[in-house]
């Protein structure tokens, strides 16, 4: 049901673009105005989100420690899993952001015939997630080719590397292939594994399907329904330099893809997709394990009611005296 709603939503988006561009010919609306609006929503939304998080204080020092603390000099401290200086925090966050370190902890123990414990891994989630995010990054980077003139050689280099295996003519990029597989896996595990299905919301399916829609339309454009790349670049350069023009000869499929991308971009700040921006702010990950070395200040700290020693002694003075305990006031 949840899957169906989400699929429906993506289909509706495709139809909207189809009707808008294909039937009504609203090229500049879909080619320029909507992307601009989406971009604006993205930037404003993202800034708003991040500022809102960053503004919220971190009252207590709560890193999740996953390694030996720095204590006695002869005990080897683990500066990455239990960072005690800034380098440690940077390394920890880098491992998390670049390699999804925490997902890699999913070790499994299996008992084989030999009665020896063997630690294997159930690392598909890690692999799928990592493959998806890295491909996404490389693909985005590759797309710079449409937004820069002259094209920096590093972008061309990445594109060449990505197309090094010629699966088809024209070249199917390695990343396109991998991202398709990874996305399909990430989608299917939400459908097939009933446990994940149970916790998934419509928005979870929608996000995957929307991205899948973008990738598929992109691959279709590349392989089967070729567009005039020069025209696309003209459009892109125009948009980016705020001198938008709508060149002729760009296919409908491209507009559909562009509309899906616009939706994704506008949807991004208001959905779980912003998680990427959140990770660096996460207090369980970006704090050092040094709370006994340096005092952490709570900005909204306020005085509380306490039961003072004086009150305590007041209540028990006689008994304390009898037991021979030292007193502040003798009576």
């Amino acid at each position, binding site marked *: 049901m949840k899957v169906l709603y989400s699929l429906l939503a993506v289909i509706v988006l495709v139809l909207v673009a189809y009707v808008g561009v294909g039937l009504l010919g609203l090229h500049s609306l879909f080619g320029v105005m909507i992307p601009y609006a989406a971009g604006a929503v993205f930037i404003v939304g993202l800034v708003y989100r991040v500022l809102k*998080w960053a503004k919220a204080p971190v009252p207590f020092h*709560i890193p999740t420690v996953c390694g030996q603390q720095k204590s006695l000099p002869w005990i080897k401290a683990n500066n990455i899993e239990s960072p005690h200086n800034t380098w440690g925090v940077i390394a920890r966050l880098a491992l998390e952001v670049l390699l999804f370190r*925490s997902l890699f*902890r999913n070790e499994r123990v299996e008992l084989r015939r030999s009665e020896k414990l063997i630690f294997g891994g159930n690392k598909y989630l890690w692999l799928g997630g990592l493959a998806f995010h890295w491909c996404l990054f490389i693909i985005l980077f590759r797309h710079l080719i449409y937004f820069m003139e002259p094209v920096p050689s590093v972008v061309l280099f990445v594109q060449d590397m990505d197309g090094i295996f010629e699966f088809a003519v024209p070249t199917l990029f390695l990343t396109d292939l991998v991202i398709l597989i990874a996305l399909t896996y990430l989608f299917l595990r939400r459908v097939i594994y009933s446990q994940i299905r149970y916790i998934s919301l419509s928005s979870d399916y929608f996000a995957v399907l929307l991205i899948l829609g973008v990738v598929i339309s992109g691959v279709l454009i590349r392989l089967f329904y070729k567009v005039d790349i020069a025209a696309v670049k003209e459009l892109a350069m125009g948009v980016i330099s705020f001198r938008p023009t709508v060149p002729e000869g760009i296919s409908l499929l491209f507009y559909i893809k562009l509309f899906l991308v616009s939706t994704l971009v506008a949807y991004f700040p208001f959905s779980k997709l912003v998680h990427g921006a959140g990770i660096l702010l*996460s207090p369980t990950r970006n704090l050092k394990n040094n709370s006994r*070395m340096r005092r952490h200040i709570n900005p*909204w700290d306020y005085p509380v009611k306490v039961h003072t020693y004086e009150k305590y002694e007041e209540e028990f003075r006689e008994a304390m005296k009898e*037991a021979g305990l030292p007193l502040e006031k003798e009576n």
Partner: protein
Amino acid sequence: MSAEALGPKEVLKTIDYKPVKRSWLELTVEFRKGTYLYTPPRKLLDYLGLPNPRKWLPSEKDWQLPENWRQIILEGMKDRLSKYRSFQLFLDICVRCGACADKCPFFIGSGDPKNMPVLRTELLRSVYRKYFTTSGKLFGKLAGARELTEDVVKEWFYYFYQCTECRRCSVFCVYGIDTCEITMMARELLNSLGCGVNWIVDPAAKCYRLGNHLGLPPHGFKGVIDTAIEDIREITGIKVEVSLNRKGAEVLFVVPSADYFASPHWFTFLGYLMLFHEIGLDYTFSTYASEGGNFGFFHSAELAKRLNAKMYAEAKRLKVKWILGGECGHMWRVLHQYMDTYNGPADFLEEPVSPITGTKFENAKSTKMVHICEFTADLIYHNKLKLEPSRNDRWKVTFHDSCNMTRAVGLFEEPRYIIKNVCNYFYEMPENTIKERTFCCGSGSGIGADEHLEVRLRGGFPRANAVKYVRERYGVNLLACICAIDKATLPPLLQYWVPGVEVAGVHELVGNALVMKGEKPRVTDLRFQPLKGEEGEGDV
């Protein structure tokens, strides 16, 4: 077959063999005996000045919530969203990838999907969506949002007291989403409605008034110390000196109160006293700050701060140089991550230095509070103790990492170093059940009450299961740990799942192995059990 029509299938249907499978947004909980905690009496809430005291039980239909309960919760949420980045961030960024799902000991032990950390949080997150996000307001259920009803409150009570704030889930989350933070917020919200737990509020009230969770008055504490001195004299022939509320001592020593009350904590307590006597430490106890633990922490940040204040206040009054803390898990979570923030700066104390070895405890230079395992490991490393590990030979030992000692403090190696020096037989449990991935005892964070035993046995099963493995493989018969709640709740847990394995604190083992100057030949260990090789040599 004609019998099929009346076969077992039909009969079993009437006893509801298969639970109805519904979306998690819809279920309501049933409070069966053994699965909920009792509520605190009115007078305790009054004493602490906590809101909405009344007489009620979770099993009753009417919880007698205050009239404006919905407003209280929503305003409470709004307030906390602006005060805690963790709360806001963790509600926003979960992608429901499911990595945490099977990491919670309560889920593993019960199979109840709402015990998956992601869903436990979702119980609160769904309400957050409904009232605090645009998509939730617009799309409602479709966006995973739900109305705040009394049933939701009941569900919160049920599931947020089936979380021990052990933080195992947060180890496996890429974003570090820590369900403990969510549970803490949920409990604060519940407590603002007066929906608390007696096992938390009662010790907190006692601690507030008398200085310790047990409610032991100052002269009672004196009596306990005398008993300990007598026990040690009987075992070693040495009379140790212990002072209370003494001004000008170098070190204030604070332990969880269970250490001088409960068993097997008691033997650890003896171990501390013997160790300090042997090295000649200039220390004192305080009757006013006679509690290291902090059950206020399981109630709200404010109550935690109120109870914690005593420690520094007393250190200041007694003019000690620094503070040493005993074996306890959540106590150290508070001391390590919260105390300095709550009640610091402790600028009236000095940076801790071991008077015996001269080691500077740089890691505690701001808080000025050292963990007993750091202290003892340093002594052993510098050869300051004479140890006879064979006195622990009747034990085959494994070590249970307490959640807070690992995932909050990072104290992995110190206790292991000590154990390896005071015991001859030490075996680790499997990798994915120790250290940062350790399994909770199932009773932490104030849910270790008797009436809650069934839930505890479920939540502790993954831990017990790993103990069972080392028991079968190596014949392990002692689970060492450095947490007072562990020592209180692991014995019943193991009694049920792995009979034959006992529980001890690390400093009990130290006390056994410690060769004291001028001691008489020891024939029993601290439990008054004959030492190996001494069995049957007449009565002792």
